[in-house]
C-alpha cells in the first residue's frame, strides 16, 4: 500500500462491532501473555535446571506424584491446552496467508486441527493416567 507519509498511525483506533476473528486476535494475545510466563519457565526449567538427559521415566513419575504432582499435572495440562490452541490457530493463519486454493486450504486446516485434537487427547490421557498409567491399565484389563 503506497502512502505519502512514513509516519506510523498514532491516533485512536476505532473499533466496530466485535467479530469472530477479533476474538481470535485477542485470544492469541492473552494466551501469548500467559505462555510468556509458563512456557519460558517450562523450557528453561526442563532444559537448564533438570537437563534433558535427566528427564527419564522415573523423573516424570516423581514430578507427577504426590500433592505437588497434582499442581504439575495441572500446569502441564495448561501447557498442553493453551499451547496447542495457540499453535493450531497460528498454523491456520499461515495456511490462510499462503494457500488460496479452497480445497487445499480446507484439507491442510483439517489436517492441522484433526491431528492436533488427537494429540490433545493423547496428552490428556498421559497427564490423567500418569507415567506408565496406560500400560498398567491395560495389564489390569487383560488380567
Amino acid at each position: 500500500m503506497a502512502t505519502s507519509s512514513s509516519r506510523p498511525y498514532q491516533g485512536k483506533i476505532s473499533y466496530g462491532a466485535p467479530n469472530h476473528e477479533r476474538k481470535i486476535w485477542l485470544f492469541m494475545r492473552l494466551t501469548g501473555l500467559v505462555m510468556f510466563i509458563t512456557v519460558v519457565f517450562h523450557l528453561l526449567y526442563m532444559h537448564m535446571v533438570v537437563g534433558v538427559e535427566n528427564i527419564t521415566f522415573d523423573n516424570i513419575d516423581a514430578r507427577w506424584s504426590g500433592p505437588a504432582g497434582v499442581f504439575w499435572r495441572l500446569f502441564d495440562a495448561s501447557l498442553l491446552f493453551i499451547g496447542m490452541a495457540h499453535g493450531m490457530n497460528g498454523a491456520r493463519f499461515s495456511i490462510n496467508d499462503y494457500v488460496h486454493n479452497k480445497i487445499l486450504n480446507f484439507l491442510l486446516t483439517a489436517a492441522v486441527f484433526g491431528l492436533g485434537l488427537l494429540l490433545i487427547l493423547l496428552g490428556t490421557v498421559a497427564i490423567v493416567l500418569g507415567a506408565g498409567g496406560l500400560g498398567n491399565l491395560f495389564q489390569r484389563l487383560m488380567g
Partner: protein
Amino acid sequence: MAALVASIYRGISYRGAEGQWAWILHRASGLGIVLFLYMHIVSIFIAAIGPGPYEWVHATLYTSPPAKVLEVFLLFGVLYHAFNGMRIIIIDFFPALGQYQRTIVRIELALVVIVLVPAAIITLRGII
C-alpha cells in the same frame, strides 16, 4: 505450489528490514514449535505406556548429539517467539510506539541473545 513458492519468495525478498524479518522469523519459529509440540506430546504419551518404550525414545530422540544441536534451535525458536510475541502485543495495544519499532526489535533481539547464549552453551557443553 508455484504460488506458495512465489509468495514465500516475495516475503523473503521484500526489503522491509527489521519488521519484515521479525515477522518471517515469528512465522517460521511458530510453525517449528508446533511440529516439535506434536512430537513432544507423542513422546509423553509413550511415557504413559511404560518405562521401556519411553527410555528408548529418550535415548534415541532426545539425548543423541544431533538432538542437542536441534535443542539449541528449539531454545532459539521458543525464546524468539516469546519475546517477539511480547513486542507484537506491546505495539498492538500501544500503537503510538510503532514509530520506535526498529529500536524495539533491536532491544528484543538483544534480550533473546542474552538468554539464548548461556542456555546454548549449557546445552552444548557435553558435545563440544
